[in-house]
């Protein structure tokens, strides 16, 4: 049934892929943000120290008798070596005249009255350098003249540091992604767990277990479980209705059948002609068969009902079996069948004695019915601390091996049953009783192949 169900994909897989996908996007985003941030931070730090250097040179500018002089502080350049071992260039320009430094360092021409710092990245002496420029306006001969001080440094160290930071950011992103993947798998697993639990719970149920699902489920699953419960309810109602109907029908049929049988027996005594007597005997046999079938249908309905609401009481299986054997002994005697009882000690079990009696009687009925005349039916009761095993062995020739598995289905009869009165419900009833008590029914042929061995297993407690 489930093989034919078309799958539209796995929720877990979809959830995992979506979570992993978003984790990948987040990790990439994290990497980009960290990288951008560190790059900006590194550049800003570099700019600041370059500006600090330029400012310290500016502080060392002295104007004496219109002579502008710069006394380069030692720290101005040595502070740059704290950042990295990079090449350092500087230039001090007053108006159009280079006071000192690298004459060919391209410095920006300040806008008139511009003050403050300027930063630019340029190529000098074949290498990319970052340059900070600071401007001060001096009045020379009444003309405002800019004094610009530029300090530049190559960026090898910064590039290396950024590569380091990029590696760190990459590791950070990858680590984040790895953790997120683990979490995604875990989340997907745990979010479908209630669904799997519900499925497991429903599929583990026995074939007759039609109780509603009562255990708590997540709110999202409540509608599903509610409709499942209502479906189960309808199914149970429909089943019990049909079983009621069958029981009612069997009951209604059985009573008139008894009347018909009595009449037929009376008539049989009165008529003399052999062909008429034979016809009547056939009639009585057919009536017996119908009556027995109706009886078993009733039994079955009763068993189904009682098994659904099993009321357990402790009773001794030994007494029950011994009484049944005694009750059926007259029937067996008719066919000269010897009922042989192998019982050792009491076997107390907990269950519904009426059901168990019904099951055992059906099995015994079968054995007596199919066993040849002057044979022996052995009823044995054994067991250990956990299980009681009740076995009934006959010498009726046994079952065909290939049909054993299907024998306990309703209305299935063995091929050797042709010509014998029966409905095919006896084994079904026995099996349902055993299962209602948590036990099972085993059907096999005896080792010598002379007959069948049918065993009921009941748990002790």
């Amino acid at each position, binding site marked *: 049934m489930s093989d034919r169900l078309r799958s539209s994909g796995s929720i877990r897989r979809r959830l995992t892929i979506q979570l992993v996908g978003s984790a990948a996007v987040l990790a990439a985003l994290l990497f980009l943000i960290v990288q951008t941030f560190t790059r900006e931070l590194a550049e800003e730090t570099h700019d600041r120290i370059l500006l600090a250097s330029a400012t310290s040179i500016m502080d060392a500018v002295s104007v004496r008798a219109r002579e502008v002089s710069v006394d380069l502080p030692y720290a101005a350049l040595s502070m740059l*070596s704290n950042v990295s071992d990079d090449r350092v260039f500087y230039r001090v320009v007053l108006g159009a005249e280079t006071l000192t430094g690298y004459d060919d360092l391209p410095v920006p021409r300040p806008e008139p009255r511009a003050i403050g710092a300027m930063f630019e990245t340029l190529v000098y002496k074949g290498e990319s350098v970052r340059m900070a420029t600071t401007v001060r306006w001096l009045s020379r001969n009444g003309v405002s003249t800019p004094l610009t001080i530029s300090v530049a440094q190559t960026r090898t160290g910064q590039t290396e540091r950024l590569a380091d930071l990029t590696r760190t950011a990459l590791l950070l992103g990858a680590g984040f992604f790895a953790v997120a993947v683990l979490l995604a798998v875990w989340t997907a697993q745990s979010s479908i767990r209630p669904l799997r639990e519900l499925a497991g719970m429903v599929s583990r149920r026995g074939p007759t277990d039609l109780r509603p699902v009562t255990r708590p489920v997540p709110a999202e699953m409540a509608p599903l479980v509610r409709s499942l419960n209502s479906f189960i309810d309808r199914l149970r109602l429909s089943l019990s209705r049909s079983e009621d109907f069958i029981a009612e029908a069997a009951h209604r049929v059985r009573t008139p059948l008894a009347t018909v049988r009595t009449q037929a027996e009376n008539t049989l005594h009165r008529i003399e002609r052999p062909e008429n007597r034979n016809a009547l005997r056939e009639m009585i046999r057919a009536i017996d068969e119908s009556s027995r079938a109706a009886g078993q249908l009733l039994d079955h309905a009763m068993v189904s009902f009682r098994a659904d609401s099993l009321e357990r009481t402790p009773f001794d299986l030994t007494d029950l079996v011994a009484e049944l054997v005694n009750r059926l002994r007259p029937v067996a005697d008719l066919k000269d069948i010897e009922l042989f009882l192998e019982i050792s000690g009491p076997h107390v079990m907990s269950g519904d004695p009426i059901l168990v009696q019904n099951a055992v009687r059906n099995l015994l009925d079968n054995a007596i019915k199919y066993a040849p005349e002057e044979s022996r039916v052995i009823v044995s009761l054994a067991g250990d601390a956990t299980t009681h095993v009740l076995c009934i062995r006959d010498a009726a020739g046994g079952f065909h091996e290939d049909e054993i598995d299907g024998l306990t289905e309703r209305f299935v009869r063995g091929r050797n049953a042709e010509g014998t009165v029966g409905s095919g419900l006896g084994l079904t009833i026995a099996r349902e009783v055993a299962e209602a008590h948590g036990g099972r029914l085993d059907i096999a042929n005896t080792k010598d192949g002379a007959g069948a061995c049918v065993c009921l297993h009941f748990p002790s407690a």
Partner: protein
Amino acid sequence: MRLSALSLCLTLWAAIAGAFEVEEHALFGAADGRVLRILSTTDTHILRPLIDSFLDARPGVAVDYLSVSSAEVMRAIVDEGERFDLVLSSAMDLQIKLANDGYTRPHRSAWTPLVPDWGNWRDHVFAFSQETASVVLSRAAFADQDLPRTRQDLIDLLRSDPDRFQGRVGTYDVAVSGLGYLFATQDARTAESYWRLMEVLGGLQVKLYCCSGEMIEAVAEGRIDMAYNVLGSYARARTDLAESILVIEPEEYTNMMMRTAVIMRDAAEPDLAGAFADHLIAAAWSDPPAPDYPFPGPPATDRPEGASLRPISLGPGLLVFLDRLKRQRFLEEWRNAVQQE
């Protein structure tokens, strides 16, 4: 005064001749194969054992070794565009300037990690020695008195007896010697006492020299009694003069210079230059240093502890005193202190 006039003449002569001034020119090996051209401020005889061991392992290779004063290095490379493969110099600031201004190429090999971080600038400048700026005294002149232990002691001593020391003290001419300028600027950075000492020396008609070797010999021959800022390694290497000179490291601080190697960007034999740099590095930084390593060693693989030994760090800070205005100003101040009429 006389000496600076002489140096001016020399400078003029060099400018007219259009060539830098070579102190010593030596060719090791046969010049018909590959030739490694080295421009160096280290006296030829000091590096000879290392050059020999270098050539022993490389038949068919020759070393063309030009020994010059440290200021001449800049003239040769920057002003005259001479091509060399390797430049070895004690003027750390000038070596940094060469590297900073793009005249050098980086070098990485199995040996370069031997150099501690503070002895390696950008894989361009490699230190291969650490040497002190010491005071050299004449044993004869200081035989019967306590030796000065600090600059202040020296100042007190010189002031106490000006007649005795008149014309009998010497130091570098910082205008001529790159190493002298480096020592002087680092002194000036470190302590005020430097300027007092220079003024005292100026008052004593200090004699100015181009090189440590000449100062050591002047002391040994008794022409002067004291020389300030002399390479301690050179003085101690002259075991033949040990009877007549005393080498003192001032106790309050002693500058330590690193001799460095740079490989030139336009080197004709960059591989040989790299190999020679590795040879120097291996000799200097192996523990213990190679037997043919000529400098007092081993160069401390950790920076010397304590306040007295003050290593000059490699870095762009050294460029500051090479600034045109800064240098002008410093030389002016120095001349004012030293050259008193």
